[in-house]
């Protein structure tokens, strides 16, 4: 049997593997990782898997059941080894410990009220069909947003610096990548969240996981009945306190020689340092009751609560700071969209809102950069969930990537043939803004880009003007993206609340037989 002290090495190896996989997944900017494999990597992520399961009732989405079973057996190994945000926190505390050699952990106060409040809010959020709370709290999705919105632009910037350096030597095998963000303010959310997590992890190890994270709290409840529990062997323990010093969850009580299993993330650090096998993984069928009142130790409750409050107030603040951009009146008529456009495969806006955890993996994977975090397009409760933003790009006709990578079932897999007639919205033509009508000159950028020829150019005096035929439109937004009028577009896509099927344009074959011996027409 594996020695207890080597369990930690195993845990670290698994964590590093998961972390690298997730970092690669969210930072990959050239779709190097095939979307086919993405679902294997995200399979075990608790909240997306749970939502997908609630949606589909399918075993392809049973990752969270596996995690529940794992927790019943071994405690919160998910938090230590599978959750990318948890691992990110470990990296932050590692840095903290390296910088402050004498940094030790000690038993921390349990914020019972706060943690159950977050859990209850999360559950209510799921039950009520509005995912805003769960989306703000889900560790995996927060990790995704931090990487997609904050770290990925950095990686792209580094890439671009390299590209221009190499181009000086006529080396072109690396390509520049455009950094496209529809709304720079939306990076405030992940920035605030990262600051909170960074500060907590830097100072207090896994306090976030034991107070704010609803997944941590839920699995904590479950781990009370886990078969294997970390427990102090009173006979062997020499009260050296080494275990308490390395416990990043702050759940080892040296005075009472007890471990609060519900807060233990099964990192096994204690096993490694114990000189006497005084702390053990024990098979224990008895559920652990709630532990007795422990004294408040190293942190001020007030300090902690205020920092959490700052985070949420910050979010609300940024919501108010956002205003509509008003530009020069070159094109006169503002575009007001009734509905946002949800990604192809999401079936309907409602279905999408009910299942998307806003992890931003689709945003990160979208080669056209058309998917962007939404602000209030889906309403306040849909904040940060991705929407099609035709200012930054348009949906590639031949691409299915978002539907392949989505871990929560908010965007369901679709076939390419189906996608090509899947109507996620309809193009609306605003004649008053169109060059052809305002300048009386030719343009045709919209029709040029239209993959289904729902938009065609028809004679209008000496020039040609756009004509939209709804039934062929799939709402890909190529016309809106290409439309050159500023600040308001002359053609835009109105989202379909429920996705429909467009007609396919079928036309007869052009001239088939040509006599190549005939003379040239000049």
């Amino acid at each position, binding site marked *: 049997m594996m020695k207890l002290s080597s369990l930690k090495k195993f845990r670290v190896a698994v964590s590093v593997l998961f972390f690298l996989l997730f970092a690669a997944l969210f930072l990959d900017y*050239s779709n190097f990782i095939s979307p086919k494999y993405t679902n294997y990597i995200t399979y075990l992520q608790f909240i997306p898997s749970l939502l997908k399961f609630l949606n589909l009732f399918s075993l392809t989405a049973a990752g969270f059941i596996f995690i529940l079973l794992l927790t019943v057996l071994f405690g919160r190994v998910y938090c230590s080894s599978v959750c990318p945000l948890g691992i990110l926190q470990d990296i932050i505390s590692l840095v903290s410990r390296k910088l402050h050699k004498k940094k030790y952990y000690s038993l921390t106060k349990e914020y019972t009220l706060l943690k159950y409040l977050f859990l209850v809010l999360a559950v209510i959020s799921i039950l009520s069909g509005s995912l805003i709370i769960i989306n703000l709290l889900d560790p995996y999705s927060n990790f995704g947003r931090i990487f997609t919105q904050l770290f990925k632009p950095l990686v792209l910037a580094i890439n671009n610096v390299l*590209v221009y350096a190499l181009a000086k030597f*006529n080396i072109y095998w690396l390509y520049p990548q455009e950094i496209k963000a529809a709304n720079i303010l939306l990076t405030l959310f992940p920035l605030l969240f990262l600051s909170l997590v960074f500060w907590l992890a830097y100072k207090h190890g896994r306090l976030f996981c034991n107070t704010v994270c609803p997944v941590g709290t839920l699995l904590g409840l479950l781990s009370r009945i886990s078969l294997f529990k970390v427990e102090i062997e009173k006979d062997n323990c020499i009260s050296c306190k080494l275990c308490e010093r390395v416990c990043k969850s702050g759940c080892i009580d040296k005075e009472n020689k007890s471990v609060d299993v519900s807060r233990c993330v099964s990192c096994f650090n204690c096993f490694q340092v114990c000189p006497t096998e005084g702390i053990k993984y024990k098979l224990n069928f008895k559920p652990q009751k709630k532990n007795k009142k422990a004294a408040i130790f190293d942190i001020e409750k007030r300090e902690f609560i205020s920092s959490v409050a700052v985070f949420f107030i910050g979010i609300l603040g940024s919501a108010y700071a956002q205003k509509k951009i008003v530009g020069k009146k070159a094109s006169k008529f503002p575009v007001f969209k009734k509905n946002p456009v949800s990604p192809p495969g999401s079936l309907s806006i409602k279905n999408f809102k009910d299942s998307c955890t806003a992890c931003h993996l689709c945003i990160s994977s979208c080669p056209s950069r058309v998917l962007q975090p939404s602000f209030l397009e889906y309403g306040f409760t849909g904040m940060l969930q991705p929407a099609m933003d035709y200012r930054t790009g348009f949906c*590639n006709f031949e691409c299915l990537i978002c539907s392949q990578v989505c871990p929560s079932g908010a965007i369901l897999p679709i076939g390419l043939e189906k996608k090509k007639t899947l109507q996620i919205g309809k193009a609306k033509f605003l004649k008053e803004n169109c060059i052809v009508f305002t300048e009386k000159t*030719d343009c045709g950028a919209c029709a040029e*880009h239209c993959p289904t020829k729902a938009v065609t150019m028809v004679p209008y005096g000496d020039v040609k003007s756009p004509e939209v035929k709804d039934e062929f439109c799939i709402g890909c937004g190529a016309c809106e993206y290409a439309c050159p009028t500023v600040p308001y577009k002359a053609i835009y896509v109105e989202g379909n609340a429920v996705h429909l099927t467009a007609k396919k344009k079928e036309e*007869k074959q*052009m001239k088939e037989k040509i006599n*190549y011996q005939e003379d*040239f027409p000049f």
Partner: protein
Amino acid sequence: MDRREFIKRSALAALAAAPAASLGSISNLFAEPVLSKNSYDLVAVKGGEPDSMFDKAIESLGGMKNYVKKGQTVVVKPNIGWDTSPERAANTNPKLVARIIQHCFNAGAKEVYVFDHTCDNWTKCYSNSGIEKAVKDAGGKIVSGASEGYYQKVDIKHGINLTDAKVHELILSSDVFINVPVLKSHGGGRITVGMKNLMGIVWDRGYWHRNDLHQCIADFASFKRPELTIVDAYNVMMRNGPRGVSVNDLSPMKSLLISQDIVAVDAAAAKIFGLEPDDVPYIRIADKMKIGTKDLTRLNINRIKM
């Protein structure tokens, strides 16, 4: 430039090429005397495959060595605007692109670059058009056109609506520029051929669309004359262009045009398409601006049927 100057320039180019040819580093495939038949303003070929038609056409112009000298860098600009397969003919035929690159290398080119500022996602356009592979197999270098950093601002002295533009650095730094459009129908432009294809070497196309597309197309044609414009009219998209909906939009014309005069080659392409040059506003304007001639009767045309 009038016709006399055109011929003079061609002859000078040919003379300059002669010493290079005599160095003997060039393949014997097209070993015709350099000055023999190099007086055509335009060559039109039909009935062959894209690559074999190009062989014939360039041969009748005295070979690529008249245009590409030993050690020069060449930039080839096909139309790679769309994420569609080669059968759809929304992009230039990859076989033609490959054959042009081979000829450039046979003429002694040091480096041949290929790029386009695409409309659809550029990586997908490059791979699904078959052009990326064709270029690599032929020994050329395929370069991105998808980033503003590659584009340098230039003045367009003779431009009326378009007086400056940001142009891809390869166009400015390469010795030889070969324009390889594919002939297609086009909603705003009527047809897209040589001059319209130059929209793929600039960054801000929206400006053109806002400021009289046809005038801007003609304006930009006055900026830099490609050494050659080679029109792929093998499969011609007769409707729903420039992206097309299906292969049903195509007519198998099996034709190819080549000329130094971008206006003349566009005029000839219009004829093949079934339009008069005057039906296409930017051809009319470019002719008026004396960028080239739309009057095909004034040209010495070599017509080849295969």
